[in-house]
């Protein structure tokens, strides 16, 4: 069976060039970068080259990049680290209702441990209001974390606008840019970001690698202690092959972004329009046009449940994702869709198709051919659906 992968927001395959490079560092250049001998020096150099590659993609200085084990750890390092380092200055934190769990759950943990938290609502397109944010700021606000682009509905947030406000007020601004890296141009300087999270496995780099941009002069506390690697901010023997693979993936993403985005936007819009025209009782979630990530399609298909939909697609070789509670192991469907005002019932029936580098126009055609049949079949089975509707 031909398999069509439409879950690139969850993770991506590793680029073959990056994978090949990593092989060399597994087998040949395997030294510990802390070692002063040949094996160590060799890999130390490659580590610094990777730091430069990651920094370049977000217009940072290499010395501002701290490697971590992924986006989740980078988010935690940013939020726990900044909150701890600044706790003397205040205890108030601000984030939005549509953040990834790596951000939201970290804030909730802090809120249970002496901090105060404001969670900003979003509009029906899944975008944080700058006015609401302004109103939420207090004299004791020390940290604001707003994602650059949402992983479920692809909504792009007004990061630069928020950065202007936080910089003016001297509040630390953390941006979770896991979903936008390599897809939107990122400039930490014009964005006025103080901390910015990126992750490798969303941009055709290996899993288990990420980085936190820490603007020069910003002090944060580490999460783990030990051998003082990464300027003491992230102890532990560096995952050098992973980091080097991530560096390569960043380089490639930078080179290909423009061309790739043109393709992704065309395919995305074809897919969205096709679904709307072929299936009744559906609703696109998230904004349209250039406020949306290039590869993101998210649609609620009324009267049916997401996991059933995913299973049915999977049987045809189509890999997708859903905001259904059944796919997350939790009891509630996607907190993002609920925050955008969707009912539980409709949120359960959401489908995310996230396009990537290797998807072809034929993939889109196939989905558009098969999806209506699946929806029909599931609706016939649904007690909520009445033909008359």
């Amino acid at each position: 069976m031909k398999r069509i992968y439409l879950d690139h927001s969850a993770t991506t395959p590793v680029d073959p060039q990056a994978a090949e490079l990593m092989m060399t560092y597994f087998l040949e250049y395997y030294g510990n970068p802390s070692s002063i001998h040949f094996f160590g020096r060799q890999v130390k150099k490659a580590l610094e080259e990777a730091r430069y590659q990651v920094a370049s993609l977000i217009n940072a200085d290499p010395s501002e990049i701290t490697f971590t084990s992924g986006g989740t750890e980078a988010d935690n390092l940013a939020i726990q680290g900044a909150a701890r380092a600044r706790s003397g200055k205040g205890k108030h934190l601000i984030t939005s209702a549509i953040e990834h769990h790596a951000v939201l759950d970290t804030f909730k943990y802090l809120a249970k441990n002496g901090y105060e938290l404001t969670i900003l609502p979003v509009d029906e397109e899944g975008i944080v209001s700058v006015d609401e944010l302004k109103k939420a700021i207090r004299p004791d606000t020390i940290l604001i974390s707003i994602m650059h682009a949402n992983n479920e509905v692809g909504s792009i947030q007004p990061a630069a606008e928020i950065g202007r406000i936080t910089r003016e007020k001297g509040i630390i601004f953390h941006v979770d840019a896991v979903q936008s890296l390599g897809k939107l141009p990122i400039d930490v300087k014009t964005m006025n970001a103080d901390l910015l999270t990126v992750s490798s496995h969303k941009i055709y780099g290996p899993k288990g690698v990420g980085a936190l941009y820490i603007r020069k002069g910003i002090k944060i506390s580490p999460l783990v202690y030990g051998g003082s690697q990464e300027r003491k901010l992230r102890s532990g023997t560096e995952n050098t092959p992973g980091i080097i693979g991530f560096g390569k993936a960043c380089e490639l993403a930078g080179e290909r972004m423009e061309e790739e985005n043109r393709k992704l936007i065309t395919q995305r819009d074809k897919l969205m329009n096709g679904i709307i025209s072929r299936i009744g009782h559906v609703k696109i979630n998230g904004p349209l046009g250039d406020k949306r990530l290039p590869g993101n399609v998210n649609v609620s298909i009324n009267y049916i449940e997401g996991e059933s939909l995913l299973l049915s697609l999977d049987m045809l070789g189509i890999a997708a994702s859903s905001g259904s509670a059944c796919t997350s192991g939790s009891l509630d469907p996607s907190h993002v869709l609920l925050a955008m005002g969707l009912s539980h019932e409709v949120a359960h029936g959401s489908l995310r198709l996230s396009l990537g580098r290797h998807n072809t126009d034929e993939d889109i055609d196939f989905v558009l051919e098969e999806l209506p049949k699946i929806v029909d079949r599931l609706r016939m089975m649904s007690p909520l659906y009445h033909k008359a509707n």
Partner: protein
Amino acid sequence: MYSEKVIDHFTNPRNVGEIENANGIGQVGNAKCGDIMKITLDIKDDMIKNVKFKTFGCGAAVATSSMVTEMVKGKTLEEAMDVTNAAVAEALGGLPETKMHCSNLAADAVHAAIKDYLDKKIKV
């Protein structure tokens, strides 16, 4: 994740639909949780002559619904009341841990339909 039997019942669900003049109707779950099962029964002489289901829910919800219809068809009401959610899951070769709680309500739906039948009979 799912056993082969679950996938089979999900892909080829038995007894989908609604019996038009059903004399026993049961519905459990709610859309908030993401699982609704509706069972319609045709009962005659204390016997389930026919049974159909409609389900909004995940793979496990559909498969348990389908399985339960097979298990109770032709059974007496008493026999059908003895079919438990656990028995349905077992007949499917087991369900993932996380599905045991929410999506395994098909027997409850059957029981609700039987109760509906009995309630209406008492009223008559």
